[in-house]
């Protein structure tokens, strides 16, 4: 009950507080000398946002780097020990390998399926309906998606009724059931596919939007020149979509590195399915702050190239404004 009241109060109070902050602050600033005004005002307006970003992102980012050089209680400097642990311990190395698998296969297939589906649906009348179907997993949380796919991958001992959809299909072809999430050669692929299933709709929508922007005249000209549909897709459409594909691709690369929910819920890292993010959480939960921080830093270093790409792209956009 108390929680409900505070939540309602917060919803009403926060905008009111900001309103008060703005009006009161502006009233004070307006009394100040002209030069001082133009100096103080922007910082006054940007302060809450910049403050939040500093407390929750900038400061922790720097602090995490420090923590990664200390032991689990944070009172003894251990140099690179936590990193050495990360790069020599078999479990963490497995998580590193799996994150690489996610990076390559999740990214490639999400974008690839997104592109293929966008191009195919562009050619049929029921496009918008089919798009809804493909997009449906996007609003579904990774937690719910994991439970959905636990049923798809469900496995019973051979000879008993298979309740999992995939194994039932295999059974109808007379094949033995596969323990998708336990079998070491299938489990990572299975998890990555759940990720692809969740992300394809997102890729499709964005690629489709820029596909619609390609003028029909260009395509008509190609057809006049005798190009068949496959040539048009390969030589005209895909190159024109390339900038969009790279934007979607970088987003997917970042998502691949951040993958946590699906692995946590479906296997919790069992049978060699750990990824960097679940590994990091496990260290954090067992209060190995130093090691957890080191994993975080590794993850961050992996993101840096993408971060630079994003900033570059932003600067290019700014120049065009």
């Amino acid at each position, binding site marked *: 009950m108390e*929680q409900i009241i*505070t939540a309602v109060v917060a919803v009403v109070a926060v905008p009111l507080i900001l309103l008060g902050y703005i009006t009161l602050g502006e009233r004070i600033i307006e009394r100040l000398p002209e030069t001082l005004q133009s100096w103080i005002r922007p910082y006054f307006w940007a302060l809450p946002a910049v403050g*939040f970003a500093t407390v929750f992102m900038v400061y922790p*980012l720097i602090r995490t780097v420090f923590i990664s050089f200390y032991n689990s209680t944070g009172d003894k400097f251990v140099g690179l020990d936590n990193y050495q642990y990360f790069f020599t311990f078999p479990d963490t190395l497995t998580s590193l390998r799996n994150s690489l698998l996610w990076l390559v296969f999740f990214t490639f297939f999400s974008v690839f399926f997104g592109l293929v589906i966008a191009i195919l649906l562009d050619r049929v009348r029921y496009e918008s309906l089919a798009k809804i179907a493909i997009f449906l997993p996007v609003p579904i949380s990774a937690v719910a998606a994991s439970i959905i796919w636990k049923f798809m991958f469900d496995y019973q001992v051979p000879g008993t009724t298979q309740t999992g959809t995939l194994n039932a299909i295999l059974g109808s072809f007379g094949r033995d059931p596969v323990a998708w999430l336990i079998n070491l050669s299938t489990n990572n692929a299975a998890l990555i596919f759940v990720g692809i299933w969740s992300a394809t709709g997102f890729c499709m929508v964005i690629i489709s939007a820029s596909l619609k922007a390609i003028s029909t005249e260009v395509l008509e000209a190609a057809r006049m020149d005798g190009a068949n549909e496959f040539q048009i897709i390969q030589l005209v459409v895909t190159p024109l979509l390339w900038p969009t594909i790279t934007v979607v691709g970088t987003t997917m690369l970042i998502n691949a590195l951040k993958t*946590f929910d699906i692995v*946590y819920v479906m296997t919790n890292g069992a049978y060699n399915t750990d990824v960097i993010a679940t590994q990091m959480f496990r260290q954090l939960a067992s209060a190995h702050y130093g090691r957890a921080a080191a994993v975080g830093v590794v993850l961050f270093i992996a*993101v840096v190239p993408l971060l630079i790409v994003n900033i570059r792209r932003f600067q290019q956009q700014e120049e065009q404004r």
Partner: protein
Amino acid sequence: MSSERVTTRGQTAVGAGVSALDNLGYRLQRLPLHLVIAIFVAIWIIPTVGMIINSFRGVADMGQSGWWTTLFPPHGFTFASYQQVLNLEGVAPSILYSVLITIPATVIQLAIATMGAYAFAWMKFPGKNLFFIVIVGLMVVPIQMTLIPVLQIFKLIHLNGTIYAVWLAHSGYGLPFEVFLLRNYLGGLPREIFESAEVDGAGHSVRFLRIAVPMTLPAIASLTIFVFLGVWNDLLVSLTFLGVSVYRPFTVVIAQLTTSLGGGWQFLTAAAVLQMALPLIVFIALQRYFVRGVTAGSVKG
């Protein structure tokens, strides 16, 4: 989904005076296309449909036969899983806590972001570009990199394990992207409006509240849906700051039950359906806004 073009590109091959036979040939030629699409659509919706059907079956049935057997009589539909899952300790309150976390977290971050975005869009100050580049960079920083220090801050000020901690954390993590998006939108508004308001003697607070905010409402609406569902569906932030608290939200409770129940997880289908009901309703009802929100977020990792 927004598809203004009813006619499709493939159809240009169909001339005005084609015979019925040509038409049939054309249709046959396009059969593989429809087939491939049908396979994709099937893979993308059958899993969800199957689980929803399963959630209306008895737990014993779920363990004995596949969901597809229910398509033929006797159906044996029941709400038993829903009853069982809602009676499980902590599940019903967790739905309430999800609401209590999501709504304030969304309001807080959007209110602060709009104000910050206004400063970045319509004010000049030293270091502005640098600040903004930092914000663009922060959008892709994995939050794993920040969890430990933030956890330590919360412990220090005795906020750890409270709902307030998650409000603040979500707001902090969401802000860079929202400031970025709203600043681009605000910056695209016509300069003349702001200038003439200034000439008329309107201060920044008036310009912000009377001009900037109302004109940004479409962007704020799309962003609200995006942020709301992001927080509603979040697992990692709540798991970190509320993992052992009584105020665990729905996603955390489902995730923890899945890992702890082992074999008896089947009736969690009901919980999963309840958890995804809200996002799906929002998506179906507000498709256009929803898709716009998601595509606008295409740069966010």
